[in-house]
């Protein structure tokens, strides 16, 4: 199917911008346009984004000076309405002053990407209104660009003096509350600066990237099988989603199709991961409104699911499930029995707890109309996952860009489609909606797992070609419990990774929290934060 769509988009874009496009090519479900001049980026991106109604999937910069290409910037847009197509707008940057025109004003989601590229490559996005550093905090040398090829992985940079300036809110009675990067709970590092008037939050500024570990740079020095382990550790609780995206990208480069059984097992583990994390989030929501009983019961279910994970994969958080070309751990007939048994048990318990929670007016009261996000803002910054679905932005990679065995489960009748659309319209983006969306997704996950258990009698993996072709690239994607995660890999010589670009759901979802807490009170912040379930490490890399 996607061949037809790609041809159509190609014809359309060539018809419009023929004399500005150097060449076009196709790579599976990706349509690539190579621009003659980087000055045309805004106009063409604007057309693809607005007129073809796509969403920004990621922005990738590579240092290809060694290959004689200079720096290359790729703007990747994805269709999310059932057409499985990604459009790459590629341009070369090799002027004396490394710069390109920013698209932040038309595609706001690009703002963070452009700042990241500025930090890591030193390429200036002209007209991006936000020129502050993002990844490398103020104590880094301004002339250090870690992802350039001439920067050594192990270079130690001495600390410099520098202070980040937060936005100051002035006025009588305005106070500032600094929080983090070491938090009160057992969570990851990040800094929040609240400006409050009494209890009401007037402004929130988040400062992240405390957990920046240089994953993208590190991958370039590793063997490809070790990068797989690295991809599992981008975020420990998204290990299956991230490693699936990584594997898909390599499999696409090698043009292999993994055995059906492996696809089904990937699906099952992907859903098990969603299950235990959603349980954790729901438990956290219950905890943050002060209802310890609900959180205790849900945490018991989470622990049971982690025990199940352990018996199936050997790791409580599902490390070591995937391998390039398939999966490493099998689901035997015996484990199938264990799955059916525990899942049935957990499901009935879960339904009881949810009924109980919904019947408690003091619980619902705290959730209702708390942390409302605006649809327009969410659309603009490209929010994905539960955070998008809670406001009626119907994006889900499992349906929009089917991978693994998801194609099977998603045949909806026209009536079901309509019902889904109506329910989407009704969603208002508060914590309660996110709670309900999560509950619904948990129930769906149970169904998907059950449906995937009729495993094909097949191999666990397919042997990969000895050598991957160098300087080939492909996009891999998966829907983690936080939303769409997109990985892009360009292979190097001798089975190495030339560039590994990771964009997890959290990277798009973090800015939404600054808007969601406005007009709420400070004690609601933990609740809103938990309901959005954002990952620090997945954002910081």
């Amino acid at each position, binding site marked *: 199917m996607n061949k037809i769509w790609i041809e159509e988009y190609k014809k359309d874009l060539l018809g419009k911008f023929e004399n500005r496009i150097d060449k076009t090519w196709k790579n599976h479900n990706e349509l690539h346009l190579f621009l003659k001049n980087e000055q045309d980026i805004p106009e063409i991106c604007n057309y693809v984004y607005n007129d073809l109604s796509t969403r920004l999937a990621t922005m990738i910069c590579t240092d290809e000076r060694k290959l004689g290409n200079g720096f290359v910037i790729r703007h990747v847009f994805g269709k999310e309405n059932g057409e499985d197509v990604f459009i790459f707008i590629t341009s070369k940057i090799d002027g004396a002053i490394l710069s390109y025109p920013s698209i932040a004003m038309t595609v706001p989601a690009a703002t963070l990407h452009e700042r990241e590229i500025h930090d890591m490559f030193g390429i200036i996005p002209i007209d991006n209104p936000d020129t502050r550093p993002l990844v490398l905090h103020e104590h880094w040398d301004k002339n250090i660009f870690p992802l350039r090829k001439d920067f050594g992985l192990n270079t130690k940079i001495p600390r410099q003096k520098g202070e980040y300036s937060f936005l100051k809110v002035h006025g009588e009675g305005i106070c500032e509350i600094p929080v983090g990067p070491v938090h009160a709970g057992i969570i990851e590092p990040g800094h929040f600066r609240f400006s409050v008037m009494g209890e009401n939050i007037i402004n929130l500024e988040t400062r992240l990237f405390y*957990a*920046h570990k240089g994953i993208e740079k590190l991958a370039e020095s590793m063997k490809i099988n070790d990068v797989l*382990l690295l991809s599992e550790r981008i975020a*420990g609780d998204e290990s299956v989603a991230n490693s699936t995206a990584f594997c898909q990208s390599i499999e696409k480069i090698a043009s292999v199709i993994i055995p059906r059984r492996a696809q089904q097992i990937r699906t099952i583990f992907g859903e098990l991961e969603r299950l235990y994390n959603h349980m954790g989030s729901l438990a956290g929501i219950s905890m943050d409104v002060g209802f310890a009983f609900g959180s205790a019961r849900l*945490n018991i279910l989470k622990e049971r699911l982690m025990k199940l994970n352990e018996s199936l994969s*050997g790791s409580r958080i599902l490390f070591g499930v995937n391998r390039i070309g398939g999966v490493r751990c099998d689901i035997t007939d015996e484990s199938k029995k264990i799955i059916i048994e525990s899942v049935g048990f957990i499901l009935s318990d879960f339904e009881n707890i949810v009924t109980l929670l919904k019947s408690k007016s003091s619980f619902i009261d705290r959730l209702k109309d708390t942390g409302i996000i605006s649809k327009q803002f969410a659309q603009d910054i490209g929010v994905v996952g539960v955070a998008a679905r809670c406001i009626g932005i119907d994006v889900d990679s499992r349906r929009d860009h089917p991978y693994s065995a998801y194609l099977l489960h998603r045949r909806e009748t026209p009536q079901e489609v309509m019902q889904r659309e109506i329910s989407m319209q009704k969603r208002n983006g508060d914590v309660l909606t996110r709670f309900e969306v999560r509950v619904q997704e948990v129930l769906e996950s149970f169904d998907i797992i059950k449906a995937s258990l009729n495993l094909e009698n097949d191999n666990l993996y397919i042997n990969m070609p000895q050598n991957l072709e160098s300087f080939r690239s492909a996009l891999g994607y998966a829907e983690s419990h936080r939303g769409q995660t997109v990985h892009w890999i360009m292979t190097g010589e001798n089975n190495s990774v030339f560039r590994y670009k990771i964009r997890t759901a959290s990277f798009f979802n973090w800015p939404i929290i600054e808007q969601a807490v406005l007009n709420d009170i400070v004690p609601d912040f933990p609740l809103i934060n938990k309901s959005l379930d954002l990952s620090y490490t997945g954002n910081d890399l």
Partner: protein
Amino acid sequence: MKRKSGKEILGNSIETVRGIDNQSISTNYRGSISFNKTSLKGNEELILDSCPTRALSAIKDSGQTTIAVDHGKCIMCGYCNQAEPEFITIKNKPVSPTKIKKLLVEYSNSHIQSEKSFEEIGNELREKIKKMFGRSLAIREVDAGSCNGCEVEITALNNPIYDIERFGIHFVASPRHADILLVTGPASKNMEMALLRTYEATPGPKIVIAVGACACSGGIFGDTYATTGGIDKVIPVDVYIPGCPPRPEVLIQGLLLAVDRMITNGK
């Protein structure tokens, strides 16, 4: 009158674990690697090369090659087992925490120490905390750039199954209230200063526990431009808990060791 069981009265059975022995760890669990033979015949290159975190090393002595594994670096990927299944097997028994980093290194001709059940350790710990502090033990968790796998396990300590509070252990909100810092991650450069300041803000006597392979050695993230390669490069570490991530059982063992150390050192 027939006495009703707890489940009949409560509606649920009691979920909290009493004794976790080795049986409750699934046989599939990748806990630690162990060596089948004392020395390796043939080529050690293959086996050393298979390890992504360089946890394996070879010592040549009078024609014999002994392989050593640094559990502080091992992330339990199982690649060495795939490379040399006859020499290396994967056991479900997790590695014990240690006070001395060198003890994390195990040679192919040594044994792992024995361990007690979760509740036995917990009760022992409670007694010792009482002796040392005359009250409960307060922990501050600091994430210095981990992948959040360790956080998932530390959070699990608080769930009704492990319920660490019954032993008198609390997670507190500020380092100023803490006796113990539980630190995860490879100590990213951006967290270095915050970690140092947290350490300084903690009143003595204080103990620092490095949790997980990253905290012990940098783990898979190693020592790069963005990381410092282990917590002990930034602040002094008293106890190392290996694992990727360590199980709740192993975490509580590490806590016991930490309190032990406080008593013996009088820190």
